């Protein structure tokens, strides 16, 4: 006969421990009953859209946000379905994700890593999101990706172009659809060689953080391989506003090409000021002075106005492409917001759909299941041809667009023209390439 030994103190102690356990934040105890962080239990599932709504990259962030709203609408069966109709995977049926209605929370990263981390942390701990997506700065994306890895949720990076995001800072829980600085360099170099020849002297102005550094390294390597000489590389603070004191020294540096490794509002200001200083009217070394913006966006082009005419750059995607996926997305976005979507908006939309698709194919919200479904996933119909989510570094591989500022824009959206679609094979690289070395994906973290 067993002896039951209950004491009043013992019962109180056990009760207190159990009570404390139940009042813990969801993400800490979720694993105990569902095996991963923020396992959705009701009829809804929540996603976190963490974008810059203020700061130098705010315009990109706000466009991303509009695309996220559209993606949620399509996932929940609203609107015309957009790219769900053209996506090669056919598991999404407009009933949310795994039958759960999609809800969302938004955050303002202010283009600052610490603010972005705090915002993502609040989304995970307080709002119970299963996936965080966003970014318009690689510094932010790297910081949030690392947080998501620790917390055990998926991070679907939106606008981040630094090699480091899927290079030395790659994480198993993080995925990038956007192209990277190496790809920009590899795609741009042959076009620059054709247009400007192989004897140029380049001066770089570079945003002083991870994206700027890796873009400078990539463009420098690819242009020097053409035979170009790099005269000087100068780092500039993000959000400097007035770049005139950095542009003035370019005038007499002996350089005949200015490469602006700037983005968003910074690029608009630096390009405008470079034009104000008459750089594009100069003849140096017997050649016309040229400006190159390796990473373009439609929003930047609109901000820079006539200053971008004839300026070359690269893009991940553009609304003027003629494939069925692009046309479906431009129609949905254009009818909802009255303007064509930017490349940032496209990436934001596609990443949300890809996440939903991966969850559905995996049959679970468990991040490890999602990781498995996304790794080496090959798809089409999302706007820029056959695309591979490479399993070894979580980088998407697809064609890259080379753009030029339109010489004779016919309307306010006709700011850029597609010069060339560089085939995927030309921008591929091994995952241990020196520019991406030093990173390990590590193990998937479900939050256990």
């Amino acid at each position, binding site marked *: 006969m067993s002896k039951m030994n209950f004491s009043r103190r013992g019962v109180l102690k056990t009760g207190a421990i159990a009570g404390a356990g139940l009042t813990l934040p969801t993400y800490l105890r979720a694993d105990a009953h569902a095996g991963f962080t923020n396992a959705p239990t009701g009829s809804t599932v929540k996603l976190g859209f963490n974008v810059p709504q203020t700061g130098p990259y*705010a315009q990109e962030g706000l466009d991303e946000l509009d695309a996220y709203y559209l993606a949620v609408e399509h996932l929940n069966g609203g609107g015309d379905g957009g790219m769900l109709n053209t996506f090669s995977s056919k598991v999404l049926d407009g009933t949310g994700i795994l039958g759960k209605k999609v809800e969302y929370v938004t955050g303002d990263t202010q283009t600052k890593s610490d603010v972005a981390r705090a915002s993502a942390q609040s989304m995970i701990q307080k709002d119970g999101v299963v996936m965080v997506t966003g970014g318009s700065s690689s510094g932010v994306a790297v910081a949030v990706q690392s947080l998501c890895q620790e917390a055990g949720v998926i991070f679907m990076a939106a606008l981040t172009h630094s090699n480091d995001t899927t290079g030395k800072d790659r994480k198993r829980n993080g995925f990038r659809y956007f192209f990277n600085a190496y790809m920009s360099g590899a795609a741009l170099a042959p076009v620059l060689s054709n247009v400007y020849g192989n004897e140029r002297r380049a001066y770089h102005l570079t945003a002083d953080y991870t994206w700027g550094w890796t873009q400078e390294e990539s463009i420098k390597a690819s242009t020097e391989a053409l035979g170009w000489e790099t005269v000087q590389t100068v780092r500039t603070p993000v959000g400097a506003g007035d770049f005139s004191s950095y542009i003035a020294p370019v005038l007499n540096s002996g350089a005949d090409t200015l490469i602006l490794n700037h983005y968003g509002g910074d690029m608009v200001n630096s390009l405008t000021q470079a034009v104000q200083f008459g750089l594009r009217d100069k003849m140096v070394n017997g050649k016309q002075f040229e400006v190159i913006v390796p990473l373009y966006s439609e929003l930047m082009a609109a901000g820079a106005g006539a200053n971008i005419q004839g300026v070359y750059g690269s893009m991940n995607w553009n609304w003027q492409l003629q494939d069925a996926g692009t046309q479906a997305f431009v129609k949905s976005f254009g009818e909802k917001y009255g303007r064509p979507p930017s490349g940032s908006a496209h990436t934001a939309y596609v990443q949300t759909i890809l996440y939903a698709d991966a969850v559905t194919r995996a049959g679970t919200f468990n991040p490890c299941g999602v990781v498995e479904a996304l790794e080496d996933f090959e798809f089409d119909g999302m706007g820029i041809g056959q695309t591979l989510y490479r399993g070894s570094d979580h980088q998407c591989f697809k064609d890259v667009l080379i753009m030029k500022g339109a010489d004779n824009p016919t309307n306010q959206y006709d700011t850029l023209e597609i010069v060339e679609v560089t085939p995927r094979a030309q921008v591929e690289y091994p995952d241990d390439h020196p520019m991406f070395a030093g990173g390990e994906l590590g193990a998937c973290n479900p939050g256990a």
Partner: protein
Amino acid sequence: MDAIILQILNGLDKGSAYALIALGLTLIFGTLGVVNFAHGALFMIGAFCAVSLSRLLQLSYTTIDETQKDFLGKPLKVETAYVESWFGPELGSAIIDWAVPLAILLTIPVMLFVGYAMERGLIKHFYKRPHADQILVTFGLAIVLQEVIKYFFGANPIPTPAPSAYVGSLDFGVMLGFDPNVIIYPYWRLVYFLFSLIIIGAVFAFLQFTTFGMVVRAGMADRETVGLLGIDIDKRFTLMFGIAAAVAGLAGVMYTPILSPNYHMGMDFLVLSFVVVVVGGMGSLPGAVLAGFLLGVLQSFASMNEIKAIIPGIDQIIIYLVAIVILLTRPRGLMGRKGVMED
């Protein structure tokens, strides 16, 4: 040599903005004894006067042009500005093109009113309070003002270009005997520099050659004695607050083609302008102007690659470094008066 001339020119337009803001700050401090942390916000409000007028002039009606298609393949909606339909396309587009200079006419009354309302409505209640209280309340006011602007105009910079006649640059080098395209200076920056000289000259002339200015200067030197002579010095000082606000506002209006206005541009300039005031000497108007130009030019020099190669990052700290050196060697600043901010 050419690089040095280029950086001097480059520093002058930045220095012009610092000098104009610092001049206003010193006027307020010298007359009312208030440390006005909302002065940067006045610069920002001035810039947004230009944005507002530009938007007002571009108010338009929509017509459908069946012959053209938009990006969705639908008939194109064509926007026509009312100004263009009232005055004809040529004159109308010229008026829109000149929105920034025209905004000066709007800014002066708006800023005089804002300055007057600010002084009468809030700041006068803090005259007898410690400087710390004045700093806190004006800093709070600056935050409120920038949030109001953010609410109405959004968080993003709003491009506000100069008139097309001033787009492009002057080949300054040719005038000095250098080769063409060696020393180039954008027209609008030159306009801004000349504009700031005119404003600074006008403020000094006003204080130096008018009876009103004489009374204000007397009040700055000895407020009580002027009061004992039966002069209502408070009323004059209130007007000086309005004038200081107008100077900051005008500095902001004309700066919009150089830097697209955003809601926090005032804060960016405020801190630097305070350093300018301290370096120039608290309460000294010529000191504020001199220090403004000096620090603008030094900041430009610090951005030169040759300097940065010796001391990396110097371009970010030069102003504060100079402030430390000057305060250590001349604690009252370059042209500071004895007794100001000293117990």
